[in-house]
């Protein structure tokens, strides 16, 4: 277990590309932090700097208040699980898992190593496959090997770079719960990179949302979801994207009569479809498309050429072309300044 403190971390590549810009981040002991953002936002680069595979241009990283810039990757005591597993395909599963022990001069006897490998194989569920050549495993098993290989050296910090994105959906869900379970048991600090906000929301204690190399917001899933700091975070998180409406469109929702230079952000779940002349309606719209998703419907509407999405219960499904009113809970309306994109 270790805590990580990132201080003003910057990575600039030759040619002027700034992948990470002055990142400040505090990862407490034993917590699970997700780095969330679209491709190219700098999350993988940040991970590489934490692990030591890349050197920062400026700024510092501390493990337990010790700066680790000059410590080579092999000595930082981190575990790293790659998106493409990067297991040693030409070795057996046994040798993959045992690798970390074999190359560290820890004076362990071969019997000790053997016991450890068995133990880890048990935890990740590979006890029966130890003799198989790693290159011939199924994708799911490869991921288990990658995990086991990293776990065996008991790293203080675990770094995972989108480890489940190549797995099939059912196994992905299973692995998420497994990972949380392992983390609770072993108490490791985990930093988890993903572009999938569902993953981040379900697994992390705290989420660091990044975009274009800059930290957008760092907080609990609840904070990120309900009190996004800016328009990017608001739009990025949420399975059906948040609606952004110019305040002028629904003046009844704008605060204190502010209608210029403000954009309203409302989650589709906070909206309700009502008859067009219902007094509760804050604005009127026409139904464009209805997506039946089983437990809910996503209704795409057009209000004055402005797309609006509403999540409604499947009971009262509207028809394409219907004129409807949209009602909203004013307490759930977010406001964003048009110039800075920050929440007001």
């Amino acid at each position, binding site marked *: 277990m270790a805590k990580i403190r990132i201080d003003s971390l910057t990575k600039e590549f030759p040619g002027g590309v700034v992948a990470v810009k002055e990142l400040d981040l505090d990862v407490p002991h034993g917590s699970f932090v997700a780095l969330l953002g*679209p*491709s*190219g*936002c700098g999350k993988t680069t940040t991970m590489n700097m934490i*692990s*030591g*595979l890349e050197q920062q241009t400026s700024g510092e990283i501390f493990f337990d208040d010790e700066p680790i810039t000059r410590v*080579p*990757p*092999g*000595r*930082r005591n*981190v*575990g*790293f699980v*790659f*998106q*493409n*597993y*990067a*297991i*040693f*395909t*030409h*070795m057996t599963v046994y040798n993959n898992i045992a*690798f*970390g022990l*074999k*190359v*560290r001069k820890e004076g362990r006897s071969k019997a000790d190593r053997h016991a450890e490998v068995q133990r880890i194989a048990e935890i990740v569920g590979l006890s029966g496959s130890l003799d198989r050549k790693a*290159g011939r495993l199924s994708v799911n098993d490869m991921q288990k090997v990658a995990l086991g*290989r*990293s776990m065996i*050296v008991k790293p203080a910090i675990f770094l995972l770079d989108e480890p489940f994105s190549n797995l099939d959906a059912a196994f992905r869900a299973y692995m998420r719960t497994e990972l949380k379970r392992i983390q609770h048991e072993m108490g490791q600090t985990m930093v988890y990179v993903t*572009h999938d906000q569902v993953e981040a929301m379900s697994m992390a204690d705290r989420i660091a949302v990044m975009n*274009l190399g800059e930290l957008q917001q760092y907080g609990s899933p609840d904070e990120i979801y309900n009190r996004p700091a800016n328009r990017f975070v608001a739009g*990025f998180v949420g399975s*059906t*994207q948040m609606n952004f409406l110019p305040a002028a469109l629904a003046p009844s929702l704008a605060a204190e009569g502010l209608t210029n230079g403000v954009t309203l952000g409302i989650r589709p779940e906070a909206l309700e479809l009502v008859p067009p002349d219902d007094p509760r309606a804050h604005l009127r719209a026409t139904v464009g498309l209805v997506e039946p998703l089983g437990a809910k419907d996503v209704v795409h509407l057009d209000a004055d050429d402005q797309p609006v999405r509403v999540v409604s219960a499947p009971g009262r499904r509207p028809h394409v072309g219907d004129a409807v009113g949209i009602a909203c809970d004013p307490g759930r309306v977010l406001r964003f300044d048009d110039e800075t994109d920050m929440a007001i």
Partner: protein
Amino acid sequence: MGRSEAAVGQAVITPGQLLLLFVIAFPAVVAIYISFTGWTPDSGEPWYDAYKFWLWFGNYWEALSGSPFWAAIWRTVVVTVLAVGFEFLIGFGLALLLLKQFRGRSLLTVVFLLPMMVVPAVAGFIFYMLFQTDGPVNAALTFLLDDILNLTGPIHVGWLTNPSIALYSVTVVDIWQWTPLMFLILLSGLVALPDDQMNAARILGASWFHQLRYLVLPMMKPIILIAVIIRAMETLKLFDSAWLLTQGGPGDASSTMSIYLYRTTFIDARWGYASAVAILVLIMVSILAMRAIRPIEAASQETIEELATAEPKDAEIPIEQALDAEALSR
């Protein structure tokens, strides 16, 4: 496969088969015939009357029981093992050094390629000049060891005149010429190694030595095998550069099998005996080829397999594209 396809297939390889017949089949038959006789062109008889000098297996017996034949084989093996060994070590070291991209690497690669392009006969001639007892190699060694380090007196090694050394001089020429090929082959192998696995090993604490022993060498095995086998095959046939360098001398100190055969044919003019030796060589080479073909085919297969299962490298998606994709997926 359709009949027309099979017909076309046969048609296109017929000229090739004819050439093979011409170059292998007929010579083999003639050589076998002559090898059972003691015929030489000096005898005055035309070749098809060689039966007049019938010896049964006399030539074969002479070759297999006599030392010149085995000595020539031994010398050839020595040159091959030393040359291929050093070519591999130096080539591998060079490939490791030039692995990371840096400015001027392409220029350096060209420089290291040049020896391979030199006509082997000319390479032999160049080293003939260099290895003269009065020549630049000795002069440079004298400068280094005598003038600077003061370890020895002036150096006058008889690279070409000393029977104990001549064979190794021949080896040096081959090393100079063909290390670049090893370098190229091994470099192409190293470049294809998956970065992620190397990084994973680094994070687990593997030193460069560990990475070499557990990752690089095992993954390079097929390529190394192909390179070594092919180079060895070619070195066994060595003639051109060695001939220009020493003509097999002094005496027969540097007579590899090809040179030995040449001298038996054109200097001793013993065509019957030479034919027997040639047939023996052909048999040995065929056995080697049969042993070699399987590892080579297996190795090429393995290379293909490894490339197929290796993880694709992460693509660098421009930020705008990525955001568009995200927006579209909503």
